[in-house]
């Protein structure tokens, strides 16, 4: 066989195998975290199947409660439109997590509560909120 044909066949063969590989990984991920459905709060309140999902929303004002025994444990309400979802999370919270923050949670919905094992905040490359007039600054009590 002419070397040119050999090369054409090898390259084509490799490309086909590679494309099949990429396709195969897309449909058969080894890890359940590889591809996760992103659904709305309303959708999750209606479904019953115990599938790992990802949900985005806003932390409802004043809903953050820290566990009294374990400060790594937090419960809050996720708000999306007019739908509310109670969420529980144990672990290190991102620095930007607070009331009103836009967050993404990933985990399982069980018995009326969402058990998240991933909690991310949308990274604000700038501070939200409006520019403000000169206001007095006081050192109040600090909490996190």
């Amino acid at each position, binding site marked *: 066989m002419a*070397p*040119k044909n*050999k*090369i054409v066949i*090898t*390259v084509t063969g*490799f*490309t086909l195998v*590679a*494309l099949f*590989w*990429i396709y195969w*990984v*897309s449909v058969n*991920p*080894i*890890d359940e*975290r*590889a*591809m*996760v*459905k*992103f*659904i709305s709060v309303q959708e999750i309140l209606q479904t019953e199947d115990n599938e790992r999902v*990802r949900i*985005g929303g806003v932390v409802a004002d004043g809903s953050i409660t820290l566990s009294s025994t*374990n*400060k*790594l444990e937090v419960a809050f309400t996720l708000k999306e439109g007019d739908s509310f979802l109670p969420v529980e999370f144990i*672990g*290190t*919270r991102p*620095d*930007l997590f*607070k*009331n*009103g923050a836009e967050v*993404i949670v990933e985990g399982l919905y069980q018995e009326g509560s969402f058990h998240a094992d991933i909690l*991310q905040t*949308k*990274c*604000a*490359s*700038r*501070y939200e*909120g*409006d*520019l*403000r*007039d*000169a*206001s*007095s*600054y*006081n*050192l*109040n009590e*600090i*909490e*996190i």
Partner: protein
Amino acid sequence: MTPVLGSVSLSLATGFGILSVILLSLYIRSGDYRLFLAGRRMAIIVSALVIIATLLLVKELITSNFDVDYVAHYTSIETPTIYKFTALWAGQSGSLLFWVFILSIYSLIMIFQNRNRYHRMMPWVLCVILTVQLFFLILTNFITNPFEPTNADFVIANGLGLNPLLQNLTMAIHPPVLYLGFVGFTIPFAFTFAALLTNEKGSLWVRSIRRWSLVTWLALSCGIILGGWWAYQELGWGGYWAWDPVENASFMPWLTGTAFLHSIIIQEKKNMLRVWNTILIMLTFALTIFGTFLTRSGVMSSVHSFTESPLGPIFLAFVAIIVTVCAILVFQGLPKMKSDKHIESLTSRESGFLFNNVVFVTMCFAVFWGTIFPVISEAVRGTKITVGPPFFNQVNVPIGLLLLMLTGVGPLLAWRRTSRSNFIKYFSIPVGLALIAAIVFLLFGFRGYVVISLTLSVFVVVAIITEFKRGIQARVNRFGESSFVAFRTMVRKNRSRYGGYFVHLGIVLMFIGFTGQAFNLKKEFGLGINDREHVGDINFELKQLREEERPNHFAWIAELLVTGKDGNSITTLLPEKRIYFHRDPNPDRRQPHSELDIHTTLKGDIYSVFSSIDTDNGIAFFQIMINPLVQFVWYGGYMLVLGTLIALWPSKREKLLT
């Protein structure tokens, strides 16, 4: 006054840009050289005006003129001066201006370098660069003008300030370095485009764009590595790469750019693969614009992205135009670009390069697929899917290992063809030693990808050392030089080749670092004073919790005593929990920030994050990670830079030429 001047400069630049394109087009039609000179002069003015506008914005940032919306949003009075300056690329409109600023500097350098060369190609080259400049100028003029005044009807006492995450020196350097890489590919693209239109043959221009591409590639590589370094040092999740859309956006052009750097060598030396190279550089350029789109449009829900903006459709349209125009041009130019030479054998350096290219492009496609999959899925099936790191790792690890292997195979292959006897001669030692190493790794209890990766690393290192040794030996035998002199002369005489080998060694070091991830440990726990906890066989004891108020934040500092399994003291870690804007009356505006502390050794890092604090009970919560071999990634980075600099250093012959 200054903001008005800035806006006017941008408008004028747009006007002159359009004029310059018209003059250059007229020159291409009529051949009247004066038109070319006038067009080129206008192109210089465009770049100068962009630079002036950028300097004016810098002045506004440094002097804290909060009447400019951008200044008020990204800086505050307390922001240190250096970060007032770096706020230039912190936000959308500033960073778009910064993009065209870098392109303008590149354009001026390019015009000066080639003032007496390539008269046929130059008008086209300038037209391409001007078109790109105009695109960004239109964005900064009409869509997001960085000089936009604030719409508040009161006097703004203070700006919102820069995110503390971005107040870090690495983060200050990372974006401009990355941008130098992104923007730089415009120049080789413009040349390739022009060569296609004017049917320019010869290898002189190929040589000069290879240098451009190499400089650009170096900047892009440094930008990516710095980004990883920053994420590792600042973000507190213990890793340096998360396959975030924005990271992928910089990685894709890097992959095609690396492929281009390899295959352009064949075009320069053998005048082959011209079509392929043309497509590669066009793809790379399109990916840089696509990458800017991913970063700046917010189409992907990514931690870096900005909220909805009208930029998305405009960028996408620009990418579509680039791809369409390039596709038509390549298709039309096909007959002219056909080379009468063919690769002679499957076991030749040429086909080695070709395979490396195919594998690079495959990996780029895999990353591209994973990045846009959520968008496609949403459009086609109506369900939004997020694609996480496990997908990218699973799909790319085998492809990456194949690339690692080629890093060693390629240099061993001879040009044109490798005879059977040479094949055995060159490959027996590296393959033999790699097999022995594989058995040792298996005996040590390593399995799976870890064994493959480490074995291939041994193979590549041995292959490259034998290459060096063979070259040195030849000189020693022929000229009777000492080994050191022979090594030095050999590298000097063929800088790009041996520099390339150093880069390959850097890549091996990085792969060793990546492999270390297989052994990462992670644990979260709370500690009271004098409590202990262990991760693996390393113990952590909380000795003290201190409070400190500093000029722009409040900090809790934990003193963690780290001991080994025999009770031997390893180090004391001092992670901090900080609150920025702690004096703000509204608690929701206060900004917590975790300042990490990392203990670094060659064997691995001990990574500590102060997660949160229970002030009532005096308990501090930590996230501790043990990350073996991470340092190899950074050492690989240094090696990569060193190798590229060796390749870039002008040889004596080139010094004489210029």
